[in-house]
């Protein structure tokens, strides 16, 4: 056995012999804190939790004021969102009162955790409000495109009656109709579905809002394609003499 091998074995033995000490020290650090520490932790938790609740109440109040000033939402969606925000405000105010009165660290921990998990103000409620507003705007755009659809149909029929060659324009009109129908189909019932989303839904699926936003994006893209077809038809009608 060489000198090098002996040195290596001694090092391994020293490390193995030191392990029990490390374990004991690790466990010792996890032992329950002294009562004075618990009181400080409780105080810290209550201060931090109170501030987080206050911040959420301010954000919800601002959103509620924006909703009241908005004229883009349908009355039903406006009423639904307002009711949900008011419910969150009431719940958070009650939770704040409860947290301030907490005297046990464990109870304060539970209440502080519920600020996030039971209300999901930033992760669900506020983005959901924007999603519903976007949904209403897209359905309003769909209504405008439906009016445009009727107008295009009338003009194409008039041109055809006058003996004009409308075949290329009719093909573009079919593309327009298909894209508009696809957009309407994608958003059908989406407003009700968005309004019904609760914090528990977000807790179960963190990507639930993004999935619904992508539906709105696709519906918007369909309308954009329909708009391009409408422009083709309009230009073609203008070129007819």
């Amino acid at each position: 056995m060489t000198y090098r091998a002996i040195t290596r074995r001694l090092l391994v033995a020293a490390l193995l012999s030191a392990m029990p000490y490390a374990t004991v020290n690790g466990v010792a650090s996890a032992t329950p804190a002294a009562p004075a520490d618990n009181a400080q932790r409780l105080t810290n938790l209550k201060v931090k939790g109170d501030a987080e609740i206050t911040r959420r109440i301010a954000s919800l109040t601002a959103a509620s004021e924006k909703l009241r000033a908005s004229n883009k939402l349908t009355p039903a969606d406006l009423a639904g969102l307002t009711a949900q925000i008011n419910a969150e405000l009431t719940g958070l105010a009650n939770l704040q009162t409860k947290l301030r009165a907490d005297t046990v660290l464990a109870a304060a921990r539970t209440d502080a955790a519920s600020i996030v998990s039971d209300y999901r103000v930033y992760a669900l409620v506020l983005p959901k409000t924007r999603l519903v507003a976007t949904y209403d705007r897209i359905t309003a755009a769909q209504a405008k495109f439906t009016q445009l659809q009727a107008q295009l149909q009338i003009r194409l029929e008039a041109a055809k009656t006058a003996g004009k060659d409308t075949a290329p324009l009719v093909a573009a009109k079919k593309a327009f109709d298909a894209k508009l129908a696809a957009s309407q189909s994608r958003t059908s019932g989406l407003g009700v579905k968005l309004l019904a989303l609760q914090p528990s839904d977000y807790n179960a699926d963190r990507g639930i809002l993004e999935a619904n936003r992508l539906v709105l994006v696709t519906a918007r893209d369909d309308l954009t394609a329909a708009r391009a077809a409408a422009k083709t038809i309009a230009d073609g009608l203008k070129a007819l003499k």
Partner: protein
Amino acid sequence: MTDTPTDTPPETNTSGAVDTTAPPETAPVVPPPSPTVQPFESGGGPPPPEQIKRKRSFGGIIALLIPVVLVALLAAVYLLYGDQIKSKVGLGPSSAPKAPITNYAAGVDASLQAADASLGDANTSLDNTSSALNDKAGDLTE
């Protein structure tokens, strides 16, 4: 031809003296002119002021009625024969050939613009939604 005196001389008595006791002859009483209005044409002189006033008001009514009647007549003629007159002077639709419809896209542009505005609104809202989903107000716990 008999000479009939127009004036009776005052009675004289036989002595030739004038009998002053007899009442003098008085002229027959002429009744005052009747207050009833007489047409001014029937008598000479200026008519009374009331007649002048009535005459003027009557003339004013006539002066007002004449243009009204004229306008009514013109309106009636226009309504009855307006198209024929206009066509004869070359202003009526019947005289000009109907212009062919050349703009088959009439009204489409307005609808397209309305759709564009609505789509732009949806785009803006969608962009805001995207940022709202990505930004959770700096709260990583959510």
